[in-house]
């Protein structure tokens, strides 16, 4: 294990985040504020509460998840795609760093950045709604596991992508729709039975449900199922990354 290598990649990626700190912070804070204005005030004024939770507060876990998923995927995919684009990927391939160190560095940094922004959104939400977290440790656990799982997914997208267009297509066409349809702004119980069954095919529903449970004790699906879903995603993604580095697919000739 090359710990200096893994730590260097992690610090290097975090440095990129801090170099553009205002862009990194301003964009999610502004989006969150807009979501609160649109969903919390305009629509929330009509919905009032969902299962006893004020609508403005109800959407906070969904908003955090939306951001964590988007940030995890985009940070990790860009992190590994940029060296491929600029040609500096050769450094990782010729130095004594293995797939574990490279993944730890890139994915770890992407996940930490996403978690930091999620906390920023939570802090922003206190300006709009009254919030309290029922199970803070579980909230942290869900946040960490989800950020990790989607950073791994983003890392795979970055390894796979051959152009900036490909880099954008999965987050835009797959991740964002899954989050919106995964109960970020509503409970699956609010859907007609048929659509509730369809919604339960969406893996993101399980993440948002578990995360919302840690806030309010309310869940669309059992919490253990949510945990198993995110753990399964982590295992599958790790397996794919290991295979990519072992075979050199899209990395080595």
């Amino acid at each position, binding site marked *: 294990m090359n710990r200096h290598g893994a730590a260097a990649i992690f610090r290097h990626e975090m440095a990129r985040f801090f170099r553009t700190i205002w862009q990194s912070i301003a964009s999610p804070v502004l989006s969150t504020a807009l979501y609160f204005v649109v969903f919390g005030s305009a629509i929330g004024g009509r919905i009032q509460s969902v299962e006893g939770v004020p609508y403005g507060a109800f959407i906070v876990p969904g908003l955090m998840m939306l951001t964590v998923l988007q940030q995890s995927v985009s940070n990790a995919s860009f992190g590994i795609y940029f060296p491929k684009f*600029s040609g500096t990927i050769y450094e990782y391939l010729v130095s004594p760093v293995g797939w574990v160190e490279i993944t730890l560095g890139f994915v770890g940094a992407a996940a930490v950045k996403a978690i930091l922004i999620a906390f920023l959104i939570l802090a922003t939400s206190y300006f709009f709604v009254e919030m309290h977290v029922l199970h803070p440790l579980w909230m942290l656990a869900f946040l960490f596991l989800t950020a990790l799982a989607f950073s791994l997914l983003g890392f795979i997208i970055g390894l796979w992508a051959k152009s900036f267009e490909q880099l954008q297509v999965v987050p835009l066409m797959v991740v964002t729709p899954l989050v919106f349809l995964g109960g970020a702004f509503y409970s699956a119980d609010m859907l007609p039975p048929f659509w509730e069954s369809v919604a339960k095919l969406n893996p993101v529903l399980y993440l948002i449900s578990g995360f919302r449970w840690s806030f309010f004790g309310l869940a669309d699906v059992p919490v253990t199922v949510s945990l198993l879903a995110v753990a399964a995603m982590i295992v599958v993604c790790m397996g794919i990354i290991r295979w990519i580095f072992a075979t050199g697919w899209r990395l080595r000739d």
Partner: protein
Amino acid sequence: MSGIIEIENLSKQYGSGTRALDDVSLSIREGEILALLGPNGAGKTTLISIICGLVVPTSGTVRVGGHDIRTDWRAARRLIGLVPQEIALEPFESVIDSVRYTRALYGEPPDDAHVEAVLRSLALWGKRDAATRELSGGMKRRVLIAKALSHRPKVLFLDEPTAGVDVVLRREMWDVVRDLRRSGVTIILTTHYLEEAEEMADRIGVIDKGKLALIQTKAEMMGEFGRKTLVIELDTALPALPAGLARPGLALSDDGASLAYDYDTKAERTGIARLLGDLAQNGVGVRDISTTQSSLEEIFMNLVSETPRVSA
């Protein structure tokens, strides 16, 4: 004694069917400068890319410092530094951070004294805080060398180190390479500038169509393949070559003032003594005699033009 790099029966066939390397075996001695010469697409970059870990070989083995590059890759890679052909640097990173980063990737703890020494040796210390995008092409290439030296490698690969750089900078790069050799680093450089190989290398390997056509010391190559030309300045210009002097390799200059005689230095009889005797016998007076030797470029062209080229 085994070399610092031992290559045995190395082959690489790409998915497209192109055979970039074909059964190459080679031993590289510690502390030498080896120049790999060959036309574009000959397989030079594929060879060093396999040794460094960028390309997976189809068959064969490579050992660096006794470590197999596939089964003991971490130990093998720690001994290697690579300066790639293309300039690839993170544009917003400072020079010193870029060098520190590479050192860390090689598993080495921070050592700013060493980083400073490397940057000073490459005349980059004054630019240590500059972002790499602000540097000239030559400086960027030196940053790549600094990065490759950041972990004190025993073997340095320079892939076309002076491609696209001006003459002054090329000479500067040669000085850098010589300094590195003096510090004990084994250097393998690929080039298609014959002047470069002639100027710097201890040994020259010629790669053509994926095969190692030849590997010899520069002196051996010049001796073995070099042809010399004997130039004889005549007392009086001749209107034509007298019949008594005619022989293969001998030609009269256009103005008739000199004779040029090409001969093979490794031949048992060069024919020089006989030619001089025949000149005297035919009453041709000689004013001066000199010899010129064929350049490495001519030797190289002879080697790679022996078989017809195929497009890869």
